[in-house]
């Protein structure tokens, strides 16, 4: 067994953000100058209103989104969309109680308006006028929301955690730019076209898409505390998705995403086409595979599946605001200092990591969406819960943000994950883990165990209205028999409860891998990553996947029915 030293994590974490090259002077940035000027002018008056606007922030994103999607050899869409978007955050009342408090008597709406801004040219009058209009509107909305919060506080029961609604973030000044992302789009378009033609003639593939998307630009942030930030926005993804459906209504999907920042990080044409072909083969296998039966058995969660598992089952439950809001189940609220997962596991959320093993991490950021510098947060150390992910909404025992206040542009920030890392104190080679699985199957006398190869996502129930359970949707599952034979099965969902499931981890492999994705929650969709090794679970509960009531199309796809002729 290999022993991974705890110190290695800090070393890797500390080395990652080597970005000194693009540093710039915040004071010289024209957007920051104009944003700050208008913020100061407005805040001076707004803070004297009744109720006062006691905190004001502007988030301005200047960038371009572009992409192309292909299917069956044709372009489905191709777009280049520049964006100049503004979000105004206005807090009315006081840090003790403000307009953002979640109402006890009603469902909260986390969305906020986003303004499309005119170009910032010339004397910037149009830009400043648009800022002024958006600020007026946000201030009026904040005051109206505050009055609802006041009314709610009079009629609702006492809050279990009566912490303040806001803690002022520390003042930060930081500026970094990044060279424009450069990709050979012509080559990629040709590659996507070629890949999209591989599905033709396959009657088990009912839908497919092949895309390359790119988002880049700069994010500017100014607030009434004095924070002035400019940070780059850069994401690029090459991906494909294949979909099939069995006669009994079960949807099957296979696909792959390649998150990159440079051309050199992309797969070669041959690698990409081979991955598509591999997924086609897997989909064919799955379409003929037997359906899974509900049962509990030992299982291996492969690295990327484990990464999703940790994100869904533990990660969301250690987001700070969920410990405060009485509508949540608070699985871990009172578990600080207590064991919550198997002692071989340490779990850290580290948004400062830009890469892991040469793979760019989508969950990397330097400052969160509330202007707080990101930092690694040890959530669980050797199985014991230590921390929560914190935004600027304090909770009992955790009075300040740890740089995890995140949101999509059109939402208010709450505590969210960035790069969630699972670190095992003891690891074995993956082959050894499979041997251990076989031994465990025999020990338990089970007819077979499971290998969860891939997981697309799922959901975890955190509200008090439902059981504190999760249901995850693997996209590729194998049964493994005591003799080592593997058989793909379809329609297997993973279910369980968090406190039980994490204590079933018996061992981990040394094959850390990255899952890059997007996570949706109250504050919208944010890019995230999760890194984990494959793990052996003593028991995993599998249940049948829900099926669609609609049957597959009556005729085979056109290209599978007949190829040839004039096109």
């Amino acid at each position, binding site marked *: 067994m290999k022993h991974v030293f705890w110190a290695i994590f800090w070393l890797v974490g500390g080395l990652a953000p080597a970005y000194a090259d693009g540093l710039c002077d915040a004071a010289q940035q024209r957007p920051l100058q104009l944003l700050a000027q*208008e913020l100061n*002018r*407005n805040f001076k*008056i*707004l803070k004297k*209103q009744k109720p006062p606007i006691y905190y004001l922030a502007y988030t301005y994103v200047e960038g371009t989104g572009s992409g192309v*999607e*292909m*299917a*069956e*050899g*044709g*372009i*489905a*869409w191709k*777009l*280049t*969309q*520049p*964006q*100049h978007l503004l979000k105004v955050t206005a807090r009315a009342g006081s840090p003790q109680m403000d307009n953002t408090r979640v109402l006890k008597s009603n469902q909260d709406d986390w969305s906020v308006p986003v303004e*499309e801004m*005119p*170009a*910032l*040219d*010339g004397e*910037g*009058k*149009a*830009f*400043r*006028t*648009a*800022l*002024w*209009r958006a*600020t*007026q509107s946000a*201030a*009026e909305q904040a005051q109206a929301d505050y009055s609802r919060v006041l009314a709610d506080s009079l009629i609702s029961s006492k809050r279990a955690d009566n912490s303040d609604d806001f803690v002022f973030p520390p003042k930060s000044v930081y500026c970094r730019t990044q060279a424009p992302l450069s990709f050979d789009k012509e080559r990629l378009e040709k590659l996507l076209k070629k890949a*999209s033609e591989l599905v*033709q003639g396959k009657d088990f593939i*009912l*839908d497919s898409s092949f895309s390359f998307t790119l988002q880049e630009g700069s994010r500017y942030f100014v607030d009434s505390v004095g924070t002035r930030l400019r940070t780059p926005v850069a994401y690029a993804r090459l991906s494909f998705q294949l979909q099939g459906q069995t006669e009994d209504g079960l949807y099957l999907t296979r696909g792959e995403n390649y998150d990159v920042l440079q051309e050199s990080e992309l797969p070669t044409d041959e690698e990409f086409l081979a991955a598509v072909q591999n997924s086609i083969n897997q989909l064919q296998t799955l379409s003929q595979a037997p359906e899974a039966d509900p049962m509990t058995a030992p299982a291996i969660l492969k690295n990327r599946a484990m990464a999703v598992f940790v994100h869904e089952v533990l990660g969301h439950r250690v987001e700070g605001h969920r410990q405060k809001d009485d509508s949540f189940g608070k699985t871990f609220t009172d578990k600080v200092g207590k064991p919550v997962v198997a002692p071989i596991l340490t779990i850290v959320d580290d948004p400062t990591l830009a890469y892991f093993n040469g793979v760019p991490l989508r969950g990397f950021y330097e400052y969160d969406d509330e202007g707080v510098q990101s930092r690694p947060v040890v959530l669980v150390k050797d199985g014991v819960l230590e921390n929560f992910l914190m935004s600027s909404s304090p909770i009992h025992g955790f009075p300040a943000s740890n740089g995890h206040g995140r949101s999509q542009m059109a939402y208010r920030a709450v505590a969210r994950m960035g790069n969630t890392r699972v670190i095992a104190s003891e690891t074995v080679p993956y082959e050894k883990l499979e041997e251990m699985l076989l031994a465990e199957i025999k020990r338990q006398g089970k007819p077979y165990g499971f290998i969860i190869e891939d997981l697309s996502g799922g959901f975890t129930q955190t509200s008090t209205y439902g059981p504190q359970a999760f249901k995850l949707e693997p996209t590729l599952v194998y049964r493994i028999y005591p003799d080592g034979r593997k058989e793909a099965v379809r329609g297997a969902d993973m279910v369980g409860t968090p406190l039980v499931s994490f204590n079933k981890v018996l061992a981990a492999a040394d094959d850390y891998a990255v899952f890059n994705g997007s996570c949706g929650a109250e504050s919208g969709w944010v890019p995230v990553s999760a890194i984990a090794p494959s793990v052996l679970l003593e028991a995993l509960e599998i249940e049948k996947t829900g099926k669609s009531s*609609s049957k597959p*199309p*009556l*005729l085979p*796809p*056109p*290209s599978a*029915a007949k190829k040839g*002729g*004039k*096109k």
Partner: protein
Amino acid sequence: MKKFLLFSVCLFTGLALGAAQLPDNMYFRAMKDEMDRSLAKLRVKGSPKPYYVAYQLTEGHAYCASASLGALHTDSQMPATDSLSALAVVATGTPQNDSMGFKDASSEYAPVHAYSVPKSYWGIRHQLWDITNEGFNAASEVYEKKQTYKRQKHITEERTDFARAPQASFVEPIVPFPAAPTEQMEEWVKTLSAQGKEVPYMEDFSVRICLQQQDLYYLNSDGGHYQYTLPASWVQVQAKFRNQQGYEETLTDRQPLPADFTLDPAALQEQTRRVLRRAEQIFTAKKGEPYLGPVLLMPQPAAVFIKQHLVKNVSNLTPLLPDPDVTAGSLRNKTDLRVMSNSVEVYDKPQLRQYKGLPLAGFAPVDDEGVLAQDLTLVASGKFKQLPQSRRSNGKGQKSNGHARMSFFTLPREALTNVFVKAKNPLSQEALEEKLLQRCRELELDYCYVVWDVSSGLTDVNLAERLYTKDGRREAVFGMKTDELGPRALRDILAAGQEEAVVPTRDVGWRNISLITPALLVDEVELIPTEKQPDRKPFVSKP
């Protein structure tokens, strides 16, 4: 009328009746091949097979530039976009008794559609396959529900659901979307919108120019087909401000651009000035008070009036089962009855492509059931003469006149196209105002109204002018709305003007139409103040 005839003759060059050869391109090959396969092989045991399929492919192109207060918006930096979408109509059963003409609460009466259709032969076929399958499943379900309903209601009369009709085609080469004069457009939107900077109370003043074009491809299984280009470009000027009384007001003026995409700087400037002028009037205007009496609707408000009270009520004339069908036009049974004042006549001109240099949005030479579209005299001498009909118009003596139209939101139903309201004795603006004043004096009113600007539903009157009967003095008024106008108001039209507005818009089924209307003097309109309250003064002064 001569003008119309000339245009119609020109257009017939691309028209053909009977089984014309399909255009030889990727779009028609994909539609034909998938249609043939579906009709031959799409079957479910125990359910009727499809007997009729129609597809429409729409390739949309757009390039826009916009600016606010002299600064460009990001859409100006977007390259021209294009997208392909598809619609499918699938009918099962037989023409005598089929799956169409029925809509219950759980279903939409709309074609199955797909966006972002990949632009390749197999990509198009794949999407058509997908939506045909969905359309067939839906049709099979609706067919059963319809039969059950007919049995329950003892509907036994023998009326053909979908009549045969000679099939037509209209094919012309697709006009490539031109390279947009991007720099020129950017310069104009910047310059025009910068004029708002000089107005102290203006909070936003934006100008947006959009060059747009739709390439349409249609084929049905009876052989009807069309292929042509529909230009749909426009300029929009919008002003946002708070008037002297503290009300937040938004004025929007959208005008179509010529079919050849030419931009006339003088026309753009005039449109901008018009919005600024109206904003100035509203800034100093009084809030209106309740009023009942004659109103002169200027051409743009008159177009809204005609859309709301005439077009809507003569669309979708064949009611869907089950009864009653609230979506069916309420004037459907009024043939030869007096429905409108005889001071105007109304025509519908589907074959007309342009009018006064502007493209007509309702140009539809062959309808969405493959029938040659006929021009209609809708109203003459105050009576309905010809109503739009489709292959589903199954009343006594009815047969299609090529007016079945569909959109993403409705299967083919009876609809108008380019609606012309023509005054029998057109009056100049001065004569119309004099007539208005004269009528007000007869009614012993202190003042009457000229309505200049309305929101799309005619419910909100953004700008009106009081004309005082005593001295002809004018006074701007804002914050009014019309109260309970019905189709009866069509009979109250006293006179119509000479100047016309060409207004591209959408009808109740979201189908493209154009309204060509003069100013209309309506004898009795009730205007009441809106309930809107003044908005709070901004906390901080404008930068």
